[in-house]
């Protein structure tokens, strides 16, 4: 990790993002529209006194808000690596970047930093605006939530690198993104608890790191579970990260090598 190089990427992406002023403001403002929407949906669902929500203090509003906010991180993980690669293919900076001392995998990681930073700001904003709508954060274990978030990101990153490897080879990766984020949205428990699905679907859900990340995050924020109590989630998410990270790097290295043979490195 080269801190100065990472800083240069964050600064570059911040400058570019804020140069599109309207889009930047809309991304922030959308939270102020979404949270009230979740609040009113929550009010409606909570009236039904669903048993499956008991685990989350009976608050569908909090359940949905945390689910959507964390889904942002998955979306960034899936899209930022691939989109930064694709953008550098389109603009022709890829070959210039590859000539530098900084490896391509580092370039991809640094290119995602600003997006993670911005998504973290949005995540905090979701909670702050949620609190304005009576989201109960009284029991929340914020340190536990931060640790769950960090390890969740580490378990999501390999999916982004796999996507980047696919983009490197076939130049388009939208299908892969849609598949993983769609599966996570459905099976991961963003809109409804995993326990309300049939058993075979629950087993499928356990294969996605997002399911564990979201459950851990809800336990930390909504139920205030201690760091020790979150150990199971750290272990599962850590295992995903440890197993998938080297595989994703290998896949990416093979994809780069392949494109250097076919001469399609900078093609789009």
């Amino acid at each position, binding site marked *: 990790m*080269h801190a*100065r*190089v990472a*800083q*240069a990427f964050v600064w*570059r992406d911040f*400058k*570019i993002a804020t*140069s599109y002023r309207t889009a930047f403001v809309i991304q922030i403002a959308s939270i102020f529209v979404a949270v009230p929407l979740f609040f009113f949906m929550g009010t409606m669902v909570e009236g039904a006194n669903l048993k499956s929500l008991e685990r989350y203090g009976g608050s569908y509003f909090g359940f949905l808000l945390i689910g959507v906010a964390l889904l942002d991180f998955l979306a960034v993980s899936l899209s930022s690596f691939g989109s930064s690669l694709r953008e550098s293919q*389109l*603009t*022709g*900076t890829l*070959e*210039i*970047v*590859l*000539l*530098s*001392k*900084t490896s391509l995998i580092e*370039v991809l990681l640094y290119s995602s930093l600003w997006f993670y930073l911005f998504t973290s700001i949005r995540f905090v904003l979701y909670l702050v605006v949620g609190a304005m709508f009576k989201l109960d954060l009284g029991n929340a274990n914020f340190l536990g939530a931060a640790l769950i978030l960090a390890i969740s990101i580490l378990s999501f990153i390999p999916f982004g690198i796999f996507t980047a490897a696919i983009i490197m080879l076939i130049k388009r990766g939208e299908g892969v993104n849609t598949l993983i984020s769609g599966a996570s949205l459905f099976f991961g428990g963003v809109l409804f608890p995993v326990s309300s699905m049939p058993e075979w679907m629950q087993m499928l859900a356990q294969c996605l790191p997002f399911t564990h990340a979201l459950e851990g995050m809800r336990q930390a924020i909504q139920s205030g579970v201690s760091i020790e109590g979150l150990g199971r989630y750290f272990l599962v998410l850590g295992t995903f990260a440890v197993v998938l990270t080297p595989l994703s790097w290998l896949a990416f290295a093979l994809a780069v*090598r392949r494109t*250097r*043979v*076919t*001469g399609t*490195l*900078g093609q789009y």
Partner: protein
Amino acid sequence: METLSKDAHGQEDTRPTARPAIEVERLTKVYPAQRSLFGRVQPEKCAVDDVSLRVDEGEIFGLVGPNGAGKTTLIRILSTMVLPTSGTVRIGGHDIVGNEKEARSLVGVVSSNERSFYWRLTGRENLRFFTRLHQMPDSEADPWRDRLIELLGLEEMADQRFDNYSTGQKQRMAIARGLLTRPKVLLMDEPTKGVDPVGAAEIVELIQGPVRGLWNPTILVTSHNLTEIERLCGRVALMHRGRLAALGAIDELRARVRRSDHFTISVSGVEVAALDRMAVESGGTVSSAGSPRADTTEMKVNFPLGCAGFPRLVRLIVGAGGDLVSCSNRSTTFEEAFHAVVEASEVDSEGGG
């Protein structure tokens, strides 16, 4: 192996020892067939075919050829972006496959793609980003970046957003970026592409003067503008269909394809018809003749190389009571040489199947 004997202006090379900066030996690149889900899309393609060349330290070397000749593939192999199929390439003695990082660290690339900058950042911010990417310490990179901006005449634009730059200014910025790491070898792929003639001439002057004057980097430049290549380069490689069709000094190349001597003469005291007869009698071929003034006849006449026809013509003119007022010998242009080599290469390819 050929070595540079004269520079672009015909001056003798006085370097004591010409060490190789780029060595290419029997390089071949075959792009594999590209297949889609539904079958073959593109067949296998040999982009570079058994090419060998050497570029010496400090030399400005031209790589020319028609579209699809393999120039860009060769440059991309030299910059380690594409892996060769066979053969060896060394940059500063480092093999680009075995010692990829070392070889790459010696190379700077000037791309003709103006999109390869961040348009919403200023020129200075762009360069700062790239110095960070190269992991150069700010204390070293900042003054050097400012010097390059000054050297390339970009001071006034440096703090403006890149999307405000003209094509010529963008190209200068690309040169500045290529020089950031003080590379020993600078690969310039069409550095004047899209630039107007005045801007292009300025870029050529920049390369010849300030850029070369920095640390005398080895420069390999491609261009479709042969006049620029002629101004910049001592030697050239002419590629055609992936092969090296010619390699050497531009003067040698011109001499090699020259098949006749071209003379333009101005004569007084001899009429057009008589002069025409004398030219044919001397073994020449008249390409044009006329009388721009009443007392003078002008003629363009070609003689086969080494036939001594021109002295014979002069004797005939003098013998007929005429005077040779002026005479010029037009040499073969680089463009003519280029076309002749490409044509000969076409014939060879067709002959060889």
